[in-house]
């Protein structure tokens, strides 16, 4: 589904990703862990198409398409969803209106007829229940005045509504209490299917107790330096990132 080859990217003249490689197949969950500054959020931003990140070399192939050629909106329409680390507040734009527009744009891109109002409302209802988000919240402006937990729930709610092929969760666990973490993880798990995949970017192992990854990769200084199964996350938790850096220096 996704193939990243030798990706180099920089922001404001500073090279952050220095030869990143990753392959994600349908049905898989990949966790990317790493210390602060290792390039985790840059990877998320590059995948979503944020313009202040410049890809200097390498390629990203998504479902056979050159992702780097696509605008942020076309990437979303192709099925990439980024759950933001810091979701933006948009006063005056209601979540319902926003999602209605997003779904309409996605369907138009795929050549599908517009969704019936009734069908849309039914879907809203189902997905709200799935991610335990209240109507109270979805009637409000996008993220305006939301708590940290509410913002993250809203990200997962949007993900449920847009039903992406590849979800990229950027530090979705940061700033969450244990209840919100459980709700968010439940949402992700329920949305999991053999046809879609997820990349879970996190600093801590905690989230991976709830979203169990098939693969764990350690990102350090812009490259994946170690890959393994879910037990690698536990090992990291126990030994800390210093363990990896030392191992790198010794080798």
């Amino acid at each position, binding site marked *: 589904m996704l193939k990243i080859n030798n990706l180099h990217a920089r922001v404001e003249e500073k090279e952050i990703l220095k030869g990143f490689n990753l392959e994600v197949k349908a049905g898989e969950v990949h966790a990317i862990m790493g210390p602060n500054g290792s390039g985790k959020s840059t990877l998320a931003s590059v995948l979503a*198409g944020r313009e202040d990140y410049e890809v200097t070399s390498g390629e990203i192939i998504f479902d056979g398409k050159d992702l780097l050629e696509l605008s942020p909106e076309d990437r979303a329409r192709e099925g990439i969803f980024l759950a933001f680390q810091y979701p933006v507040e*948009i006063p005056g734009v209601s979540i319902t209106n926003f*999602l209605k527009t997003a779904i309409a744009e996605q369907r138009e891109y795929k050549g599908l007829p517009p969704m019936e109002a009734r069908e849309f409302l039914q879907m809203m209802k189902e997905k709200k229940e799935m991610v335990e988000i209240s109507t109270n919240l979805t009637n409000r402006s996008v993220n305006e005045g939301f708590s940290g937990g509410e913002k993250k729930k809203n990200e997962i709610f949007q993900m449920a509504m847009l039903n992406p092929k590849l979800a990229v969760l950027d530090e979705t666990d940061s700033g969450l209490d244990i209840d919100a973490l459980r709700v968010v993880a439940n949402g992700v798990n329920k949305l999991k299917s053999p046809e879609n995949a997820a990349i879970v970017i996190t600093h801590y192992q905690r989230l991976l107790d709830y979203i169990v990854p098939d693969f764990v990769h350690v990102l350090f200084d812009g490259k994946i330096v170690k890959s393994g199964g879910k037990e690698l996350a536990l090992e990291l938790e126990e030994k800390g990132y210093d363990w990896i850096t030392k191992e790198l220096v010794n080798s």
Partner: protein
Amino acid sequence: MTSTIQGVSLKERLITEFELQRSALLLDNPLLDNFRNASIKAFESVGFPSKKHEEYRYLNLDKELNEDLSTPFSLDAKDEESFQFDGSLIPENAIRISLINGFFSKQNSEINNLPKGLIIKSLADAIRENDKHVLSVLGTLAKPSSDAFIALNSALFMDGLFIYVEKGHSIDNHIHISQEIHPHNMVFSQTRILLVCEENSNVQVVHHIKTKETNPSGFSNTVIEAEIERGAKAEWLSIQEESSNSAHVITTQAQVFRNAEFKHISFGLQGKLIRNNLNVVLEDSNCESHLYGYYHPSQNEVIDNHTLVDHRKPHCNSNELYKGVVDGNGTAVFNGKIYVQQDAQKTNAFQSNKNILLSEGATVNTKPQLEIYADDVKCSHGSSTGILDPDQLFYLRSRGLSLEKARALLLSAYAGEIIEEVSNNSLREALIYRIEKLISA
């Protein structure tokens, strides 16, 4: 240089026109003579403002004040026939008033069967009938000595509109005023509107200003005087949709008395040049004013909003929010003055101006001015000018919205804060439709 000479000659010609029409301008009421004389003298001494004039620094009127402009002294029957209301801006059961080139059009207005407590008539008729309410208010709020356009309007208006709401009456029906200019002969129209709300009355007015898209261009000069007496409430919604070759100076002078409330919402949507002078005097204690504005100049349009809130007595609240979107080579000017006089203790006065620039060629000149002479007051003002937030745009695009849709959604939300202030649902919808059209243009 030539434009300055044109301005001078226009001034002289208007004074000559005044002399020629002197008897007609009395409107069969000799009591008007002093007022007309004082007005033309005031105009003669100040003349049209140049860019050197502090209040007109950012507004170049020279080009618009064409020497061929002339004020009409009668209403053309053909103009009355071709007049049309814009149904989308007429709330259910509204009372419809048509003003054409400064004249009250009896043929198009519907003033039979007015609700109890409401008097509406042609201003010229009210003056002819020597209506005491007209003569006691006319020119006392908008003083000819204070501004060239007020002086000129006071000297030359031939007609207009008189609205009187009697004590204790709450008028459920909106009053819809459609003010249209037909500039077939380089019309320099002078429109005068007088609103008097007696004690504890309540009224809502929709003022739709439009000019027929024709050549040659026209210039309109409108003066509105509004007296809001004790405990009364008035809401005035002004929608300005001028043609691409017409200029308009609109002066609104409101006087608000004890426990009374004045709300003014302005939408400057279109026009070669629009200047709003909105002056609100909070004359007595415990009164309120709420001023909201949205403006959207594009292409080479200029929309200039000058507002003044004058707090004269204690315990009054004023609140003001003006938001603009400037596109193309458009120019917006905002100048918001708040005076808090020595007597006006316990004043709450807030003002905010926000601007979004959509293009390289867009210009905004914004200047909040607070002058406070009392010591126990709460006042604040703020002004910001910027572009659409790139993080918000990216967030929306990352969900599949095109750049165009994302911009439209953000701009609609931005305007929505002002539209929300309009109390009538159908008017809000009509405004949303118009603004969305401007956004996607």
